[in-house]
């Protein structure tokens, strides 16, 4: 029991890390809260469903495809919404409402196009039979999803810490105005980060049918809360803190489900409030000087 909860927790932790990562990247770079995050995840999930059913594309292939499509979608969306928002008086607060509106639009369009029913992809696309890890057997789909999440996280690490664009992105995260003053094209850097953030959500969506159960157009709200729990535990605005947050969240979730199953649904909310009150900067956060 204990070993199973630990290992399944790690597998889910890696996946939840991917679920939260895009939201955190967008918040870190632009200081805006993308409440439509869960809806982009939902779109990724429906992409995987339709591509699998129509052309039989394996979800791993879909993951690469949605990455390209959503990054390309994110760029124009950024220029349409964000620069205008950031000229307002309180962009952080207004962003919650603006992206709530966007999430309503996406949810409505998805309901109109896909219909409100639950959809799922059979787990056997990744081969039948469980995978054995340290004596515990896990569904193959879980392991593939966890590996894909690990690869995506690694990609973000390389992007942020090993490329010139990532260097500029981190500069914008630390101080937007100073980055602007040193001549960095803040809008371009932010737009790319925004696109990558959406793409990460969509990739997480591709694996959602295996990790979160069946998908439907209104699943976004729940995902948002879970993503917030993950990134607040790690540290809001620090994409790598999300790895820790995801693993803490995943392991606590499987432990709750194993030992106190009827209270497991409370976990994200309680964890979120507890961390916000006790250590608002998150487990890996730096002290922030205010005023």
């Amino acid at each position, binding site marked *: 029991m204990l070993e199973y909860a630990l290992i399944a927790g790690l597998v889910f932790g890696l996946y939840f890390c991917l679920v939260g990562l895009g939201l955190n990247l967008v918040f870190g770079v632009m200081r805006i*809260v993308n409440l439509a995050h869960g809806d982009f995840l939902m779109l990724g999930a429906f992409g995987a469903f339709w591509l699998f059913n129509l052309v039989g594309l394996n979800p791993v292939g879909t993951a690469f495809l949605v990455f390209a499509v959503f990054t390309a979608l994110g760029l124009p969306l950024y220029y349409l919404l964000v620069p205008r928002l950031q000229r307002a008086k309180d962009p952080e607060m207004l*962003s*919650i409402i603006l992206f709530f509106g966007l999430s309503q639009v996406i949810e409505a369009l998805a309901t109109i196009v896909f219909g409100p029913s639950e959809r799922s992809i059979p787990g056997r696309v990744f081969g039948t039979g469980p995978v054995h890890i340290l004596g515990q057997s896990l569904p193959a789909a879980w392991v593939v999803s966890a590996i894909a999440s690990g690869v995506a996280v690694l990609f973000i690490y390389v992007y942020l810490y090993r490329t010139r664009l990532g260097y500029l992105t981190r500069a914008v995260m630390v101080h937007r105005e100073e980055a602007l003053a040193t001549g960095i094209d803040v809008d371009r850097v932010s737009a790319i980060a925004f696109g990558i953030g959406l793409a990460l959500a969509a990739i997480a969506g591709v694996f959602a049918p295996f990790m979160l159960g069946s998908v439907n157009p209104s699943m976004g709200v729940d995902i948002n809360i879970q993503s*917030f729990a993950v990134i607040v535990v790690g540290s809001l605005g620090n994409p790598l803190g999300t790895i820790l947050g995801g693993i803490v969240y995943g392991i606590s979730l499987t432990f709750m489900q194993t030992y106190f199953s*009827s209270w497991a649904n409370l976990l994200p*909310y309680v964890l979120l409030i507890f961390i916000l009150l006790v250590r*608002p900067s998150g487990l890996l956060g730096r002290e922030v000087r205010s005023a």
Partner: protein
Amino acid sequence: MPRWLRHTLLTVVPVVAAAGLLPFGYSNQLLLFNFVVFLTLAQGVNVIYGFTGYLPFGYVGFFGAGAYGFSLSVLHLHMAPLAALGVGAAAAILLGLLLTPLLRLSGAYFAIANLAASLAVYQVVSNPNLTEITKGHYGISLSGVFNPTLAYSVAVVILAATLGLTVYLRNSRFGLSLQAIRDDAISAGMAGIDVVRARTLAWLLSALIAGLIGGVFAWYVSVFYPETVFSSEFSIFAIVFALFGGVATVTGPILGVIILYGVYNAIGISTPQYFQLIYGLLIMGLVLFLPSGLVSLFKRWGIDVP
């Protein structure tokens, strides 16, 4: 004429009169009741968001606490509805007190934590282990005290009191000090305002409003499930209505409810997804082009709106 009297005559009197008299000429009382509920909730959001700047994304938590405080004291203690309403209000205030530490957070952090708090309350109420007490997922049935006419009248009284409170905040030193805290808490503290006390008071007032109207809602519908009274639609509708009209005014939330909830009832019930689409686009357009709400248009034309 003093400013507060003019504001009362222009806003509170016509709205309350319409809410009180329309049931005599219009048969769909449930629709009118829902309007009263949203008029009240939008003003409740106005008190905490408009005047103090905290965005209560989990405002429905207080509404649900009021509904359950009311229902459980009717079911288990066999209280009279009006006394039970007091318990509902007390439950909401208690939850508000429990959540006061959240006021230390700011901006998005507060909104998210508040949303999480309301979902946590929902999970507790609907938890299968507590079915004995809360009836869990089976929901509540209060057929013994069912009395829609009286419940409607009480709701109108609560609406009148809430509108009165907003007029007071709009025209009083206390309301002004809340707005000063919202704009710059440190300077407000320097000017001698007790920031923590004022904020907490506004927060509890706003919780009280939602708790009272939640209790009346439970009384009026008398059969409901936990997901009915904890539906995040209540928080979101109330916030959007208030914002659409313009917060920190009395008129704004009223206009927002009448226009948007009117549209919702015209097209939202038959084709909810098209309403959701229009609604989402409206919200986005509002934030991008008119972030201070409809009434800011009047202000731009130099008209003083209550």
